[in-house]
Every structure is written in C-alpha cells, then in structure tokens.
C-alpha cells in the first residue's frame, strides 16, 4: 500500500511544480462554462424550468460538471499508449507493483492536485461571475464527494481499458480522441441526461457513462429526490465493480501477446 501512496504523492508534487499551467486551465473551463451559460439562458428564455431544472440550477449544473471534470479527468490512456509504443512498459512490468494500479494512483495524484488547485478556486471564480446556487446542506456536499470519487473510478477504468487496447491496435490515438468525445456527450457533461429523448435515456441507463458526470452534478444541484440519490450511487458502485472484469481479462490477454517494439 505504501508504494501506491508514494505514487500519489509523487504525481501530486510533480503537478505542483508545473502549477502555472493550471491557471490558464481554469480560464479555459470558465470560458466553456460561460459559453454554455449564455446558451442555456437563451434556451430557457421565458421558461422557468425544463425537465425539473430551473435556470439557476442549470447554470449550477454546468459549472459543477466542468469543475468536477477537472478532478476525474486524466490522460492515463494516452500515457499507457506512449509507454507501450516506447517499449517502457516492459520495464514497468518487471517492477514490483501492479502496472494498472500504479497508473490509477498516478491519476489519483493528478486528480487530488487539480481538485485543490483547479476545481476549488475555479468554482469560487465561477460562483463570483455567474449566478449559481451552492448547496446549503452539508450532507449534500458529503454525498457529492462520494459520488465524485465513483466518477473518478469509472472514468479511470474506462481510460485503462482504452489504454490497454494499444497492446492490440499499436496506434490508437484516434480511439482515444473518440472516447473523449463520447464521454463528454454521454456522461452528461454537455447535456443533462434527463434532457435526452426517452428512448436515448433508456439506452444510456445500460451504459456506465452517466456515472461520470451526470450523477454527481445532479446531486450537487439538488436535482434528485432522496430515493433517486441512493439508486444513482448504487448504480455507480455497480459499474465500478463490473468494469473490473473486462480490464482484468484484457490485461491477461495483453500480457501474453505483448511485443516490445523497441527499448
């Protein structure tokens, strides 16, 4: 366990060393939030609520969805792909730790860094510029935190899966990009899932993506009833467990047919 904690710490410190890169990151996210803020304002027009969300809740939803993304988002799929292409993965695999576990911990270190240096100041900045409503009940904050942790796990698992495909495809830059776009759309980052047509919502119920952004954002905006919160959290938990299976299977196959292209 100690070595994984060390990994988190190392990545955290590494990010800290390059922290200036993140100030523009906050600006970029604020620009995106601004774009959607104006768009949603125009969409709401005279309407006081759409699909149970008021205009104010919608702004809050957009803001928290983006700032949460700063926490769960990472590039470990790309890192894995690079390490496989460079042949570095061979060294990694003889080291005394689980390669995928180590990657996850690096992602977590990055996430914790961004949570404190990106999400929190970003949220403060955005709350200052746009009319958003922060939850008053401390319990909501707590549940949101748990849900956010699940988002991180699900998103990271999907990243691991995408990363492992490099073993089979050799060059999967396109797949990585496609995955990113799909997650932005189906996770509820761009649009709350409840806005989709019913048939699309039915399909998405059977996909892991809404656990990434929609669930924590809805909790934060008080868009769920208490019964729905429980169900949503349970769904996230179940996906965290289910996704372990394809990762393990692919990993076993990948290790067997690994070809080091250089080194």
């Amino acid at each position, binding site marked *: 366990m100690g070595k994984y904690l060390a990994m988190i710490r190392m990545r955290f410190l590494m990010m800290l060393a390059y922290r200036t*890169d993140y100030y*523009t*990151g906050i*600006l*970029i996210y604020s*620009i*995106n939030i*601004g*774009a959607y803020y*104006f*768009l949603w*304002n*125009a*969409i*709401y*027009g005279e*309407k006081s609520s*759409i*699909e149970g969300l008021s205009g104010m809740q919608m702004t809050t939803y957009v803001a928290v969805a983006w700032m949460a993304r700063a926490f769960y988002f990472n590039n470990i799929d790309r890192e894995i792909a690079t390490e496989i292409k460079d042949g570095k993965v061979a060294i990694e695999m003889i080291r005394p730790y689980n390669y995928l576990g180590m990657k996850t911990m690096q992602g977590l270190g990055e996430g914790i860094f961004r949570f404190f240096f990106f999400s929190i100041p970003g949220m403060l900045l955005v709350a200052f510029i746009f009319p958003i409503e922060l939850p008053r009940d401390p319990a909501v904050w707590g549940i949101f935190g748990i849900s956010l942790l699940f988002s991180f796990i699900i998103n990271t698992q999907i990243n691991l899966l995408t990363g492992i495909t490099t073993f089979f495809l050799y*060059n*999967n*830059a*396109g*797949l990585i*990009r*496609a995955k990113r*776009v*799909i997650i*932005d*759309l189906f996770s509820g980052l*761009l*649009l709350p899932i409840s*806005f*989709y*047509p019913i048939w699309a919502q039915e399909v998405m119920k059977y996909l892991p993506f809404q656990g990434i952004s929609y669930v924590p954002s809805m909790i934060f905006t008080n868009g769920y009833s208490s019964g729905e919160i429980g169900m949503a959290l349970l769904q996230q938990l179940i996906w965290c467990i289910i996704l372990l299976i394809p990762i393990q299977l692919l990993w076993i196959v990948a290790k067997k047919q690994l070809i080091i292209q250089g080194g």
Partner: protein
Amino acid sequence: MFYVSMFFQYVSQYMKTRLQYRADFFMEILSDLLNQVVNLVFILVVFGHTQFLSGWSREEIIFIYGFFLIPFALFSAFFNIWDFNDRYIVKGEMDRILTRPIHSLFQVILERIELEALFGVVTGLIIIFYSAISLDLQLAWYDPILFIIFAIGGALAYAAIFVAIASIGFWSDAKTSIMPMMYNIGNYGRYPVDIYNKVIRFVLTWVLPFAFVGVYPASYFLRKEEWYAYAFATPVIGVAFFVISVFIWNQGVKRYRGAGN
C-alpha cells in the same frame, strides 16, 4: 508560380506519408466526424425543449453550424500552428525555416498541413444542404460565389487570430496556453451572437472576430437582413485581420534570435 508548385509538392508528399498509415488516417477523420455529430446532437436535443433560440429556429442554428464547419475545416487543414512555439521556437527549428527560399509563414504552414481536416467541408456542405432544403432557402445565381468568398473570409479571420498569437512566441518563449484557450473561445462563434451580452459580442466582432466564421456570414444566406452589413464585412474583416497578423509575424521574425546552438 513557385509557391503554387511548392504547395502541391508538399501536398503530394503529405498524402504519401499519411496513406502509409491508413488505419490511423481514417480513425482521425472518423473522430472529427464524431465530434461534429456530438455538436449536432447537442443542438437537436436542445431544440427538443425549445422552439427558438433568441428568435433563431432549429434549422437556422443547424445551418450556422454547418457553415461554421467549412471555414473551420479550411483553417484546421492549413493553419495547424497551435504548437508553433514548442515546435519551432523552443526547439530552434525556426533557424531552418529562415534558410528556406519561401516566406517563413508559408513554409511553416506547408510543413504542418493536415489535409484530413478538409473532410469537414463535406460534412459542412451536407448539413447546409439539409437545413437549406428544410428552410426552403432560395438561391440567387451569385450566392455560390458569395458562399466561397465568405467561407474564405471566415477562414482568414480564424487564421489571423492564430497567426498573431503564434507570433507572440517571437517575443517571449515562455510556455503559454493561449492557443487552446482560443479554440474554446472560437466555439462561441457557432451560435448567434445575440445570445451573448454586449461585451462578449463586441469582442467576438472586433477583437477576436470569431463571429465572422459562423453567424455573420451565415445570416446572409438565412436572409436575416439586420445582419447583412456584418455578413458583407466578412471578407473585408478576414483580409484586414490576416494582413495585420502577417505584419505582426514579419515583425516577430525580425526580432527572432534563435534558440540553443
């Protein structure tokens, strides 16, 4: 003439290298396509809940998006210079560029072309045809000509912003993330400017003219007469901004001292 033949030589060279890795080439086109589909899905889903967006109908918004894709595709194919600072200044590659017989900006553009982005023109045209038919738009004989002029004007406006920002690298080689920021601001131009507040509208028109890539020129074809003045200004703004940005670039090149050994 020399510039034209250089251009085609680089294009043919580029095609050879890209087609060597066909799977990746198609994957890239496919992921661009996916991106466009996502944006369309967004518009479609949103209009499931409202009839008008500040007075613009669903088909009109789709038309604007379709139009936006065309100048954007031209820009992405030929002005792939977002990493100019890292790639040319920090690594000292600019020294090599300056020894070449053609204009330095043109040389950089040739080396960085990404022709697969041109596929966006096809998607854009399909989207435009679909929405033009559902809106029952009438075409005058000169409209296709105006269309091409507006598209090029929009692409030049877009390119101007990026060339000007890339030129900052000549003055300061510090790592900046202004480029990715610009890509995000550029998205504002995909929607009617009247949904934004006055300050943002002003910025999108006169400072970072992203509105001339989407809404303004598209409003001519949508017969929105109140925007005609802006629509017809598109090529003027495009050329004017581009000339200014090339001027900034040239000034920057004069200041360039080279990095490393």
